[in-house]
């Protein structure tokens, strides 16, 4: 009875909040752009530390690279990290999530579901992913404008322009529309 309740609660969460659960997402890394000095890096560093699902932040002040460790068993919002960097006055140049994967089959220009979050793999070879993998998020404002324009050529699906699922994604079963979909490459 109790197991059924837990299972149906999880199912409820996965169906209705597909962009929020991330059981295997432990780390992320990003390079910030628009800054050189440590006072600027500190503004980003301190802003990241106000995010409740972040456990720790490690900063490379020379390359402006921030390594994030997430807390366990929490809801992670990747878009909030980007917003904090932009509110600090800067931008994201590159963003990677580090996922622990088990036999995940991926195809180019296709969606894949990882722990309840939809990912759209672009500019990749068909393969099966195992173990720790670095996936670069290539959504708008997670890469420089000219990079975004370059990647736009690798898909004809409108979800890349908006970051949200469009009509072509209905085959993924019941969902609250529109759902956030993250576009990634390896």
């Amino acid at each position, binding site marked *: 009875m109790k197991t059924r309740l837990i299972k149906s609660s999880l199912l409820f969460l996965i169906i209705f909040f597909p962009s929020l659960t991330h059981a295997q997402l432990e780390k992320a890394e990003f*390079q910030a*752009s*628009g*800054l*050189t*000095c*440590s*006072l600027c*890096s*500190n*503004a980003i*560093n*301190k*802003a990241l530390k*106000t995010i409740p699902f972040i456990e720790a932040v490690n*900063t490379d*002040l*020379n390359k*402006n690279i921030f390594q994030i460790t997430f807390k366990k068993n929490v809801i992670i919002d990747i878009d909030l990290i980007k917003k904090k960097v*932009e*509110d*600090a*006055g*800067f*931008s994201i*140049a590159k963003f990677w999530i580090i996922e622990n994967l088990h036999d995940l089959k991926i195809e180019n220009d296709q969606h894949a579901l990882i722990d309840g979050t939809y990912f759209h793999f672009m500019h990749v070879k068909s393969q099966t992913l195992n173990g720790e993998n670095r996936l670069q998020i290539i959504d708008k404002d997670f890469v*420089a*404008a000219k990079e975004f324009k370059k990647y736009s050529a690798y898909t004809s699906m409108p979800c890349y322009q908006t970051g949200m699922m469009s009509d072509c994604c209905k085959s993924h079963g019941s969902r609250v529309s529109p759902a956030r979909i993250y576009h990634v490459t390896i």
Partner: protein
Amino acid sequence: MIIIYFSCPATAQELYVATEPASNMATGSIGLRLNSKLFHMQHNNRYSLRIDPEIMFGLSKKVMLHVNAYGSDMYQSNVRFEGASVYGKYRFFSIDDVHSHLRMAAFGKISFINNPAQMQVGNKYFTSDEVDLDGNNSGYYTGIVVTQLLHKLAISSSVYYLERFDNLNESKIPGQSLQAMNYTLSAGYLFLPTVYKDFRQTNVNLYCEFLASTALDKKKYYVDAAPAVQFIFNSISRLDFSYRWQLSGNIERLSENYFFLRFEYNLLNVFKNR
């Protein structure tokens, strides 16, 4: 014409001392500043001190607001409260890349100052044609600033229009210059550290800035140089020291040179944005 007496080498910062860059503070942060200027007064050969505390608010990634209060002994023997000003900046353009950015912002300031319109020395009166909204005159200014950060070189330039009002207690002097255009050109150099190890390292930045003004209703101008040294402590506070002097000009001014000292402390994530 602006004459550059010395070149400013690369590796630079955009935390200029005499001017503001096109960049903004972090959203939700508050900056506290204590600014002080020691002027050499032209007409009575004394030094006068002006102190202006300043509070800065990062309202969003595009908008920031500063509020200043002014006090000095410029017109009398004791330091007295002179008035206040509000400054706002709106960043309307920004392209970021790794270790670089190009930004543009519009800015404006309005000052309400309670000071004599002229300087009295003995039984002589001296009128200044310089429009100075940092404690001397009531008025406003509005303009545009562009800042380019390219790896370690940051260059910034601004142009703005100024207009004098009557001071709160005394009207403008007939014949005094009322309107001006100001131009600035700034560059900065990150002297230390050569390689970052952590946030606690003290940064030393060197700046040189040029500030020029041309009166719009008279054929009067000045060009000033303002080199500065800046220390950043714990990536959270800063100490600026500068000497500004007139390189060239024919404008009537109360002072042609001053020492400047500022201490700034930043409080990050003080208030939530939405």
